């Protein structure tokens, strides 16, 4: 006699199977674990350069050139840096160089630094406008100080 299936009276076997299946863990959970371990194994590849430095550098420079075009679009020559009243200046003026203060030339230190900064800000503002000829200071000493100041403190 073949193996008899137990037939429980009053129970639909299809629904019973469905109920039983609900008690089983979801098979996709095992797939998830398997996927996670493979992903974990990939991290061992950190020994290898998936993207080598050269490719990364090229891609970054391409995006940087795109940024240059965006900056050109944003740029409005008539929009100048905001100016502030003297009362708003922090005293003593904070040192803004990307190099240590000890590397600054004696000319740009202390009060000379503050005066040069304010003169050069004003001068570069005036130079930026078409009225530069009318308003530009004719002091060659100031021009020299500005050139030194700007070259000493300007980052790339």
């Amino acid at each position: 006699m073949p193996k008899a299936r137990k037939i429980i009276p009053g129970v639909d076997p299809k629904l019973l199977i469905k109920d039983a299946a609900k008690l089983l863990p979801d098979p996709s959970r095992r797939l998830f674990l398997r996927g996670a371990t493979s992903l974990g194994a990939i991290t061992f590849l950190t020994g290898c350069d998936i993207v080598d430095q050269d490719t990364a550098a090229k891609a970054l420079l391409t995006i940087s050139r795109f940024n240059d075009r965006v900056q050109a679009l944003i740029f409005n020559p008539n929009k100048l840096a905001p100016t502030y009243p003297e009362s708003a200046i922090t005293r003593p003026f904070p040192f803004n160089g990307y190099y240590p203060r000890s590397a600054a030339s004696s000319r740009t230190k202390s009060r000379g630094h503050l005066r040069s900064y304010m003169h050069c800000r004003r001068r570069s503002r005036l130079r930026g406008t078409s009225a530069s000829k009318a308003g530009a200071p004719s002091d060659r000493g100031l021009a020299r100080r500005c050139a030194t100041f700007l070259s000493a403190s300007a980052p790339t």
Partner: protein
Amino acid sequence: MSSETADAKSIDPPKVSSGAKVVIHPRWVRITHWTNVVAMFVMVTSGWRIYNASPLFEFTFPPEITIGDAFDGLTGALLWHFAAMWLLAVNGVIYVSLGILSGRFRRKLLPIRPAEVVRDLRAALTGKLSHDDLSVYNAVQRVLYAGVILAGVVIVLSGVSIWKPVQFQELAAAFGGYDAARFVHFFAMATIVGFLAIHVTLAILVPKSLRAMLLGR
């Protein structure tokens, strides 16, 4: 008999692990989520190196956890930062737009009731906060998710204002000027990193939530 099956399915919420195919996170949510992971990682690690060049406080981030070695000095970090910012911004705009237009933000994040936040926070800290139904966010989740979205908006706006403080001087002024905008940018980063620490920890503690963000359910 078949009507019983239909009733069973309609009564049973998405808790049923097999059979009911309710998507918790649609594909656009999952794609924007993981894209954001990449973008955020690059932005934060390159941003830390930029911070190190001109620290706001009496500390710097260990260079080993920052990126930007492709070029010397600060250049690498700046290039990464100004490259990944596009990924972050575009992906962010897509995510927020779809979230608002699809009604998902309204359904999942609102309402936030202070009493519920207190209650759920207490439950979370005592290990009693249930995660049975991943499709409904508890009050703590709503606060954190809404909060990190806002922090993301603030960090992008403050970042743009310190990137172009002259051309966007009104935006910089809104943050209190260039110097203040740097601090706003930093504190928004701290908020996001703090969120990340909690978020990642919870995702590991409740693995089915991680699965839901990978597979959708």
